[in-house]
Structures are given as C-alpha cells and as structure tokens.
C-alpha cells in the first residue's frame, strides 16, 4: 500500500501525512464514471465529488493504507463512514470545528499525531516534523513562484497548465513543481475562480473558461488554496496555528473568508468572478447572492455534476458573461 488518502478539506496537515512515509493522496476525483460507482452506495443527490471519490476508493482500495477525513462538510464526513463500511480501509475522522474553537482543533491534531504514530509505528519527533515542514515549504514556494506568473498582469500562465501541475502534487508527487512552464501570456479579461473543489478531471472545464477568459487567481481546494498554506514554525504547534487559521466558507461565521477574497480580488486585479458550484454543494450554493452583494464584481455561477453535458450551455453563458464584463468596465453596468 503506497497511499495515505485524505479528503479535499485543507485543514488536515499534509506534513503529518507524509511523515508516515507514504504518499499523501488527496481525494479530488470528479469523473462521472466514478460517480456512477459511488451511486451504488449513496443517493444520486449526494455531492458529485463525494460520489466520485467513493468510486475511486472502491476501485483502488488496495492502494490505501488508510484515509484521513474531517467533519468540514457533512457529506465529506459521512463519505468516510461509507468507505469504512464498504471497503474496510481504516479511517480517521478529524473533528474540525466550524466555529472559532481552537481547543478542539488543537486536541484533534494531537490525537491525529498519536494515531498516525501508532498505526505506522513511527515516532513523529521534532526532526521528522521539521523535515516534512521544510520539504513542503519548498514545494509550496515553488508553486507560489509558478502561480505568480498566473497572477501577474498580464498573466503569463494559464490555469489549465497550472491545474495539471497541482494535480500531480495533490496525487502525492512532490517533484515537478520546478519544471519550466510555457509562456501563455494573454490580455484576456481576468477572472477569479471560487467555489466547490475543482477536481482532477476538471481540465476541460477550466479550458472551456480560459478559451475566452484568463483565470488569474483562485481560492479553490483543487487549485492554489493549499499552496498558500505558509507554515512559519516547523513544529506540530506551528502546523496547528497555520492550518487552524485558514479561512473557509463553512466556518461560522465565515467573515474571514470574505475578507480574504476581497483582498485577493484587489491583488489579482480581477474584473469578474466565476463561482463553480457542484450540484448539492450547499456551502457555496447558499452564498452566491451574498457574494454578489459583497464583492461588487460581475459573478458567473457555473453549476456542474462533472458530466459536462451542459458544455454548450456553459459556453453560451461564458460568452454572455464576457459581454457583462465589458459593459461593467465601460460603466454601462
């Protein structure tokens, strides 16, 4: 068994997972065929990402030593229960508090460390944790450098390319971040991407958007969110502080998420926002109207179940959105 799986929520310190000696594999699948397999175990109205990940684990159960999940979103937590019941793969569900409660997170990380140490018969001493923190810091810095090209104005790297690179990283292949990137400079309208996690198989979706627009930044679990997790203190305590303070939409209240995005929109000089919402993803679906009021930029909501059956419709909507962006820039809207 080569992999230690973990759910897409970015609150599980990846440094601790890789300290086990296995490849941390982020469950970020969005393949309709895998979803069909998942639908044997959950209802059709479960989140497509969850269904697809269940499908992937069922098909690859021998590769996983264990899977670490969290209570971040309700379906994600329940996915682990289903995986455990259906496959027998050992799982650990981290109780990630939704409200401001550092005590719980602190204790949960301590428990996770104890669990991993015992399960893998490894001592997570200071030097091991430091080594892993530094290793991941280096990788993240490489990716931040790459991402700087995407964020620059004009943007010189497409999100389509960036997505391919981070996909490799989230599948546990740490090498590859430093490779050369193509020059993809463009003056297309700059948009910021938010919403449900972009999956490993979302390449065509991103490509469709970038045919007419440039995604110059994002706060998405499937793209750059994790690479800006800057652990300043390479210890378990440092990991706790860093991961706990990551803003996210399911936190209550989620004000820090909005503040973060506002700052990001200014930094990236985005002229519009695309919110990709998976079917039945409450955490984003509920917030669209609020985002429209708060961010004061044109917003395009693209709903998907990964099937891409609505490709033509999406294309038309993206075209219409470009017209809105133009009108907005010229002050008509």
């Amino acid at each position, binding site marked *: 068994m080569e992999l230690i799986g973990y759910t897409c929520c970015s609150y599980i310190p990846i440094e601790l997972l890789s300290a086990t000696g296995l490849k941390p594999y982020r469950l970020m699948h969005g393949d309709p065929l895998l979803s069909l397999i998942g639908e044997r*175990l959950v*209802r059709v109205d479960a989140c497509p990402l*969850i269904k697809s990940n269940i499908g992937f684990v069922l098909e690859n159960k021998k590769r996983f030593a264990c899977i670490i999940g969290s209570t971040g979103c309700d379906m994600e937590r329940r996915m682990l229960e289903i995986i455990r019941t259906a496959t027998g793969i050992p799982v650990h569900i981290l109780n990630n508090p*939704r409200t401001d409660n550092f005590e*719980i997170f602190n204790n949960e990380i301590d428990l996770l460390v104890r*669990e991993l140490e015992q*399960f893998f018969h490894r001592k997570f001493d200071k030097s091991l944790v430091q080594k892993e923190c530094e290793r991941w810091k280096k990788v993240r810095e490489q990716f931040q450098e790459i991402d700087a090209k995407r964020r620059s104005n004009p943007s010189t790297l497409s999100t389509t390319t960036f997505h391919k690179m981070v996909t490799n990283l989230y599948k546990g292949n740490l090498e590859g971040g430093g490779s050369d990137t193509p020059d993809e400079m463009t003056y297309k309208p700059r948009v910021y991407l938010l919403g449900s996690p972009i999956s490993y198989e979302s390449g065509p979706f991103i490509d469709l958007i970038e045919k007419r627009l440039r995604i110059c930044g994002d706060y998405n679990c499937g793209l750059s969110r994790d690479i800006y997790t800057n652990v300043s203190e390479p210890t378990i305590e440092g990991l706790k502080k860093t991961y706990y303070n990551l803003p996210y939409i399911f936190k209550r209240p989620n004000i820090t998420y909005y503040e973060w995005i506002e700052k990001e929109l200014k930094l990236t000089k985005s002229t519009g926002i695309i919110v990709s919402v998976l079917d039945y993803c409450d955490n984003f679906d*509920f917030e669209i109207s*609020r985002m429209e009021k708060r961010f004061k930029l044109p917003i395009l909501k693209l709903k998907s179940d990964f099937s891409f059956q609505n490709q033509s419709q999406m294309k038309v909507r993206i075209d219409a959105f470009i017209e809105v962006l133009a009108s907005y820039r010229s002050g008509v809207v």
Partner: protein
Amino acid sequence: MKKKRTIPKKISLEAWSRQFENIPIEVIKRFRYYDNDEWGIYLSPPATFMVYGARELQRLKFDNSFESLRMWGFVFNETERLFRAKQINKKVIATMGDLGTIPVLVFSFPDCVPFYPECLWWTPFFKESTELLDTASRLGLPEATCFSRVVVSAFYKRSYFPKPDLIIASTGASCDDYSCVMQIVESMGYEMMWVEIPYRRSTEFTLTRPRPQDCDKTRDGFIYPKVIEEYLVREYQRVWQRLFKLTGVNNPHRLVETIKKVNRLRNLVEEIKKMNAEAEIAPLPALELMTIEFGNLYGYADFDEWVDIVQGIYDMVKDRVKKGIGVLRKDAIPIAWVTPSADPYLLNLVEDLGCRVVETEYVIRQALTLIEEDIEPLRALARSFINASLIGSTEERVRRIKQKIAQNKIKGVLITNMLGASHCAMETRLIERLLSDVPALSIDVPAPFGINQQIRTRIEAFVETIR
C-alpha cells in the same frame, strides 16, 4: 374534569368542529398559556387555524380525544404566543440547530422563552402555500435543499415570530443545510451566538483502538471520546453567561429544577411511545405522536403548560391501552419511521394504507434522552446531548431500530428524505443496508401538494410487501 369518553378514532376537521360545540365554556377557559386568563386561552377547534391559513387541516385526520384537541390548539397557537411573550416583556430566544438542549438552559432563566425557528419547516405544508419556499428562492437560496430554508424567509418577513432578543446558533458536526441557513440569517443583520456541536467519533473511525480511560458510554450505549463532554460543558457555560448578561439573573438552582421538569416530560413521552408501540391496537395516531415527540424540544414555547398537556395525553393513552381500544386497525403493520416528514399528510396516508408507526428516528434523539440528575447540571446536559442523532455514525442512529427488527417488532422501514439535504443524500442507502432484514421504502417528501398517486402507489406496494 370529568370527561365523556368517546370511541377513539381519527376524525375530520368538520367532525371536530361539531364535537367542539359540546365542550362547555368553563372548560375552554380553564386552559391558558402563560397562565394568563385574559388572553391566554388557546382551546379552539382546529378549523379556527384552518381559517387563519392552515389549509391542510382540511385534508388531515385527527385523534378525536379532548386531550389531542387541547394539544393542537396549543401547538397552532405558538406564533400568537411568541408575540404575546414579547408584548409582556419576556425575552424571546431563538435556539437554532441543536434540537433540544439549549432550551433547557433558557428555561432556567426567568421570563425567557425559547423557540426553534426550524420548526417552521412544517408551515408551507400546513398552509398549503409555497410562499415561504418561493421567498427563499427569491433570496437566492438553492431549491434542492432541506425545507428548513424557509427559516431565512421567516427572518426576512419578520411576521412569523417576533425579533428574538438573542439567537443561539449551534453548528458543527451536523447537517450542512441548516448551518448554511443560519449563516445566511446572520448575514441579514441578525447577531448570532455560535455554539459548536462536536463530533461523536465512534471507535470505528479511528486508526487505533482508543484507550478505555479516554472514552465513555452514553445512556443509549454509544461510545464517545470523553473530551467532547468538556467541549460541550464549556459551550454551555458560555451560553449560561450570555443568558446571565441578558437577564441579570444567575441562579444555578433553577437549572437543577428545570432538568427535573424536562425529565418529567421526557419520561412521559417515552412512556407514551412505549405504550403506543406495545399496545395491541395503536392508541394514538402517528401525527399526534410526532407532534408530542417534537414538543420535547422546547414545549412549544410554554413548557409548564406543555407538560400538563402531555400528562393529559399520557393518562388518556393509558386508559385506551387498558381498555384495549385505539385508533387503528388491529392488523395494522408495525413500521419504523426514519427522518421526520415535513408534510404531516404523509403520516395520515401511511396509516390509511395499513401501517402503524411503532418506532421513530426523527433526528431528535438528544431531546428524548433523560438528563442525569445526580451530577453537575451542565455536564448532565452535555452527556444527554451526546446521544444526538446526527452527530455520530448512521449505524448508531438506527441501532435501536435494528434491535427491534431483530426482535420481530418492526416489519418495514419508511425513510423520508429531502432532495439535496446533506445527511439524507449520504445516509439513506446505508440505512437501507443496515436495516436490510426488513423491506425499506425511501420517499423524497415533495413540496406542498406534491404527494401524488405515484407516491401513494409506492406506499401501497410497500405495504403489500411487508404484509
């Protein structure tokens, strides 16, 4: 009061109105909420509430006992009661998300009235109106989510309950839909006090076996990490302090007394459920039973009066069981009901088609469990809440039903879902597998007026299978 006993049966609204004419005025005057004889009378025929908008009452059938009539009068009177509470300077406190425990704290402060806005999810169905659901859509809420989204509309419209003096919003290891609803309510300008609901991680969901000294067991037999008790105690201490700040009163002795009262109610309800399940003929219809169960949450905003109402129902049920009489046929098939139906009509329909509900899992287990009286009260509250339905595994949630199936007490399982609701989407298939020793039927509760021939046929087929 000496009451004339009638033959138990389910009757229509018209029949109730006729029966109501025989109730003497002095009896009507005897029952009052907030013990106020000037405006606190709530006993009226259900037709009154139909006239005021609860149109579905025309289609529903009710238990014909005086005790049930009293219950319906009280339950449907809640909106008026909450506005009255505000008028007479009581503090109206919205407790959201925890379903059953925070109100125990609220009741321990003088002149504080808790209520659950989420109980409005029945309103579109009782009113046969999509107004609240449509408003939620207009406000940008997705349609494929739990009906509890109507809470956003109610806060927006400001006419379903008075502006709360305090909102205590519990979230965490619970359903996403309602957590999102509460977040939207806050973004509308309402100040929330957020309370964390910890996750009851069973030993199955850890990589290694936890040390015995780190675990404890709830009354319902769920193993849990001891530390979550501490988390809850601290959260309840925060709530207590906030209520102290609001009222200026700090009397822990009142909490001890409230717990005793709450336990009295929970005991009564448990006994009613037990009698109903074990009697040869079901003494009470499922709709009334569900309403009684949900009363455990907050006593429909007048706890003392509600306990008295339930005591009356308990006596009536006991009497019916003793006499071997009831409201359903003797051969009605015993089923378990998982997740409450937002549409009350479904409970009538299932009984009309030949079933009787003998076990329920209405996501409010925490409101049914007794609270320990011999330990520190906040800890006792924490320990009772840890039994909650949605904070642990699905297997734990349906364990009691599984046991009763093994005892041959349940012949089928009915699961009512809401399309897109997070726990329904993930739990239903698993529940079907866990309870696979008997047939299970899973129904998506449709919007008002949505119960059609197709659903009826599916239930009929289900009944044929389990008969």
